[in-house]
């Protein structure tokens, strides 16, 4: 690890910096706000790192260039936002079928349609339920600070390679644009194993290889699907990430990811000062979702409040994870409105009062 020197940087730049330090040498992308600092950083810094930045003609081209580059085993990345990520969904499905590793960043913006450029979490369903055709999953990472954007970018490359899967970093305009101090570091391993038996490199002294997703023979496609599902089950078993704050004695647990979780932390700190027993569960991996941990928490805390910058997406997964006797409330702000710590303080306080009122009855 390099010396712990802090740099003051935008979230988007933290991602780009981390990607290069993680060994990413090829970036293909198309401009869209609010993520332009990523391609701009890559265009400026990849050549000096011995890599190549290429501005594609569309997000469709970007994701397909990524397919061609990922098949060689190189660490590769693209980034976009809402509408551009929608255009990439075809490619995401092929990544899943082809079992290729790569990292994609979605600094999401409001929708539907052209929407706007402010922060939102409206792309949760698209990210974790599969936005393209077919029965597949991506690994979805949801950072909530600049440092975590950096750390999870490095993690994204490692985990994509571990499972031969597309890893999506789901951020938003707040995370991408906010400038804060981070400590850059370099991982020990900055490239995948060159001896992997599926890499497309030219059939020199070996049998030709094939990367494909077409299976026409009887039963082949079902077999391939079960193989993918087995992989997703391993990911759910081994690579769930979450953070908990003050959940030990919590009577009310807030569940939030990304920017909302960060705002929620401020609200919870104030509520604790006021003597309220509230805690926070922050899923860091949205797929795999921390279902097991939620079930455990739901066996002792019976009240949950899910807060999201959308009209209620992750809340469905929270409800599916919790025991049936838990109460789940939802607080949502769609369309680019960001809740303040005061907003969350008020919403959580109201929930706490409902609990107390019930106890008195």
């Amino acid at each position, binding site marked *: 690890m390099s010396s712990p020197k802090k740099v003051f940087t935008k979230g988007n730049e933290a991602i780009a910096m981390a990607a290069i330090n993680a060994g990413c040498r090829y970036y293909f992308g198309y401009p869209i706000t609010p993520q332009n600092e990523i391609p701009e950083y890559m265009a400026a810094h990849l050549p000096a790192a011995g890599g190549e930045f290429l501005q594609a003609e569309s997000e469709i081209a970007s994701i397909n260039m990524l397919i061609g580059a990922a098949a060689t085993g190189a660490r590769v990345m693209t980034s976009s936002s809402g509408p551009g990520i929608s255009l990439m969904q075809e490619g995401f499905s092929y990544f899943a079928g082809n079992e290729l590793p790569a990292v994609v960043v979605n600094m999401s913006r409001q929708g539907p349609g052209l929407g706007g450029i402010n922060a939102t979490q409206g792309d949760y369903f698209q990210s974790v339920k599969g936005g393209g055709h077919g029965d597949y999953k991506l690994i979805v990472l949801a950072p909530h600070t600049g440092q975590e954007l950096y750390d999870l970018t490095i993690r994204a490359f490692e985990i994509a390679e571990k499972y031969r899967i597309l890893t999506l970093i789901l951020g938003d305009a707040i995370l991408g644009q906010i400038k804060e101090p981070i400590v850059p570091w370099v991982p020990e391993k900055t490239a995948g194993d060159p001896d992997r038996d599926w890499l497309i490199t*030219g059939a020199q*002294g070996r049998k*030709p*290889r094939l990367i494909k997703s077409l299976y026409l023979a009887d039963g082949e496609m079902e077999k391939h699907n079960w193989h993918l599902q087995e992989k997703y089950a391993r990911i759910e078993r081994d690579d769930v990430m979450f953070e908990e704050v003050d959940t030990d004695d919590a009577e009310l647990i807030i569940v939030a990811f990304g920017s909302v979780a960060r705002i929620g932390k401020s609200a919870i700190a104030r509520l604790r000062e006021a003597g309220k027993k509230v805690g926070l569960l922050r899923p860091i991996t949205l797929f795999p979702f921390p279902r097991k941990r939620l079930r455990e928490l739901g066996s002792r805390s019976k009240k949950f409040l899910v807060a999201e910058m959308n009209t209620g997406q992750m809340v469905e997964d929270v409800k599916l994870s919790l025991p049936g006797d838990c109460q789940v409330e939802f607080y949502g702000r769609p369309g680019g409105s960001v809740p303040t710590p005061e907003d969350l303080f008020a919403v959580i306080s109201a929930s706490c009062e409902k609990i107390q009122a019930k106890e008195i009855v």
Partner: protein
Amino acid sequence: MKQVFKRPESMTAKPFHFCPGCHHGIVHRLVAEALDYFSLREKTIGIASVGCSVFLYDYFAVDVIEAPHGRAAAVATGTKRVLDDRIVFTYQGDGDLAAIGTSEVIHAANRGDNITVIFVNNSIYGMTGGQMAPTTLLGQRSTTSPYGRDRNRDGYPIKMTEMLAALEGPSLVSRVAVNTPGNVKRARKVIRQAFQMQVEGQGFSFVEVLSTCPTNWGMTPQAANNRIAEEMIPCFPLATLKQKDGNDVL
């Protein structure tokens, strides 16, 4: 006895699945011969497209990536940018390249990406069962132009070779046919030149090959061959419209 004819080393022994009279088999062989000519088999990566040509990987003894429909040129760009000392080619039909993949091929050509694109134009969608293609001739009947292609409704057959030749990026842009022995010989030469451009690092090379689809044209192989001469070539003239010479690279 002297052996005068054999299967190219770049081809597998698998029999083609193509319909009788289809030109894909000839075009596959010409590409394989070009790879053999420059001893490229072990450093070549093929990008398969969607359509009848998707089974490229069954017939070529090279590494292959199967691209989404229309995206072969973009996939090839990605591969070539990482492995710039390998030979990367796409093999695409007219629906794939000239309809859904128009944007990808134009921009790969315009960037001068050092790849080779083999474009098989048979004026119809083969694998999906004979629907109208962007290259379908005016008046030509297909399952989605049952009364013939109408210029007012469907526009005109698109001329990719002429379009790409207008760009500065490509090193070679040519249209050939394989309906007669003479045309096969010329096609062999041009396809070889296309790979030579890539070997020399001269940038994007593109060969359009006029091809039959007897099944979906509803013709015998012989009649289909005749149609190439009588209807296809008058609309899609055979010519090399752009060719950089060796000095351009210096």
